[in-house]
């Protein structure tokens, strides 16, 4: 997994609260190979039903080309467990998501793909979105080690992240290898469970 350390990049604002995973990648694209999903990002928000790009959707605006950060509203990426919601964004270059809150499963899935979800209070997130609208192409700087987000206004905010997640992201470490280092504990658990819950 690719490590995440710092990111200084153009950010896109997404204003809808409760933006669900079906909006990030509609279900009809999920059964396709990953490389065929790349163009499905925000598909139904980006295109009209007859496949014309909507000029007012952020990812269609040239000023936001090359963005790597999303600043969203509350309960971002709620809905289904589809990890494609993370991978389709990562495959489009988006690696950090800032919002007041997230769908739980999406939040976890981020860490499995070297992406960083950042919870920032609603007022500051709204302020950042306002700046990004006002100056399309404005940049945001994220430093994971110091847990800070610096907005286009130069103001720096600290964010919280579990040290476990932070450590894995910084090292690009993979959870399966970590877990395998606890193999003895897993075996001990299984032995105990065989006695205590023998019907399983």
């Amino acid at each position, binding site marked *: 997994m690719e490590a995440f350390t710092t990111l200084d990049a153009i950010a896109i604002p997404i*204003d*809808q*609260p*409760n933006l*669900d995973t*079906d*909006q990030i990648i*509609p*279900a*009809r694209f*999920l*059964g*396709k*190979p990953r490389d065929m999903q790349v163009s499905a990002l925000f598909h*139904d928000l980006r295109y009209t*039903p007859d496949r014309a790009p909507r000029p007012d959707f952020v990812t269609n605006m040239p000023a936001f080309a090359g963005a790597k950060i999303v600043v969203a*509203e*509350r*309960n971002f990426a*709620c*809905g*289904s*467990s*589809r*990890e494609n919601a*993370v991978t389709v964004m990562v495959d489009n270059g988006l690696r950090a998501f800032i919002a007041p*809150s*997230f*769908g*739980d*499963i999406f939040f*976890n*899935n981020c860490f*499995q*793909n070297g992406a960083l979800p950042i919870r920032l209070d609603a007022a500051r997130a709204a302020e950042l979105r306002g700046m990004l609208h006002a100056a399309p192409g404005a940049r945001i700087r994220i430093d994971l080690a110091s847990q800070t987000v610096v907005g286009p206004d130069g103001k720096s905010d600290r964010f919280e992240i*579990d*040290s*476990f997640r932070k450590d894995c992201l910084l090292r690009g470490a993979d*959870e*399966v290898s*970590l*877990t*395998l280092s*606890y193999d003895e*504990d*897993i075996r001990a*658990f*299984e032995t105990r*469970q065989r006695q205590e*819950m*023998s*019907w*399983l």
Partner: protein
Amino acid sequence: MAAARTMFEKIWQRHVVVDRDDGYTLLYIDRHLMHDGSAAGFAKLRERNMKLRRPDRGFATPDHYVRSDSRSVADIADPHHRSLVEQIRTNTAESGVTLFDLGDERQGIAHVVGPEQGVTQPGLTLVCGDSHTSTHGALGALAFGIGSSEVAHVMATQCLWQRKPKAMRVSVDGTLGAGITGKDVILAIIARIGTAGAVGHVIEYAGSAIRGLSIEGRLTVCNMSIEAGGKAGMVAPDDTTIAYLEGRPFSPKAAEWDKAVAFWRTVPSDEGAIFDRDVSLDAASITPMVTWGTSPEDALSITGRIPEPSTAPDAAKKDSMKRALDYMGLVPGTLLEQVPVDRVFIGSCTNSRIEDLRAAAQVARGRKVVIPSWVVAGSGLVKKQAEAEGLDKIFLAAGFEWREPGCSMCVGMNGDTGKPQERIASTSNRNFIGRQGPGVRTHLLSPAMAVAAAVAGHFADVRKLA
């Protein structure tokens, strides 16, 4: 004396493999359900050259991509989708996971099959690469959805890294009115707390109205915990649970059964256990519910009117209401009962069990649908049971289509989608934009209410039809 513990706390503690200082826990997973979308997990496992640690703990069934008008894999037109349904065969055969395959009467939606087979049991941890895994909590399990990387992690290690969520209790006390179902209860709860209302929490549904629900009703309530933002939902196991599990194929047998029951009796929350949050609703105040917007929290009583954005508490909410009304093609102030419906879908892991079909058939009996209407049973066994009871005859006589088990039009991954702008009364769980096909307008409601809409051609109060 030990401190009083919640049911969630008890199940959690019993499954801790490692507790790290940084707040992360390696949690043991007792059951892993898989479906046709789990191919990604198997692929990740193969990339690492690893085998399933506990194939005996895995159960698989194809549901998302199977056709609702054929049981033949060869009939699946899209080659990628067909391959996913084929891969579940090869993957389970290679790994030794139990498969309920297409053509086997035990096949169905994973969240219908798990409880039906007795795979889901009280006091267990259960995961599946699907957000509606919360359904299984209805039997007193800690069950939650995970993404495909975590699916591969469970396959490889039978464990998951978790930070302990908080516990929330939603109590519904009193008596539910006639015709009020688990679906109305959960929609009322979500309307009350919002789609982010339970983020970071495991919900325990409690109170006399919840205890009074059948297992099917509880499964419906727990199913939509995710739409309330919850990580999981659960109901304490009781006599109803134990009676439901007795004799199911994967339920414990003989002496093991007694041992299991004795354990299950210890699972419910202790008297005086403290929850991080408590919410309560009065059962008597719950009416038949229908959603009007594009989020499950946009739920209204059937007696209500389409809301006015001007009544929104803030500008952002007003904006999102306007957008939702625009997408849904609705005029504020319209009585819900006057909104015409184009199509009806009865099915999904929320409402496709035998009790749902009985409730729907009761309303359909002797009536005729005036719009295209489908019934898609949740599993082959549900379908068989319904046919044994003659429910299929009632549906067919009323003009419904009686189709083959799977997710079908809940998500339309198998091609069962509506047309742009079509208004569908659906017993599923998500009314997201485009959920049932691009431009489709989804309204969530109970099976009985769906039939009421099918025979009226517009939303209708099922209580008036009784």
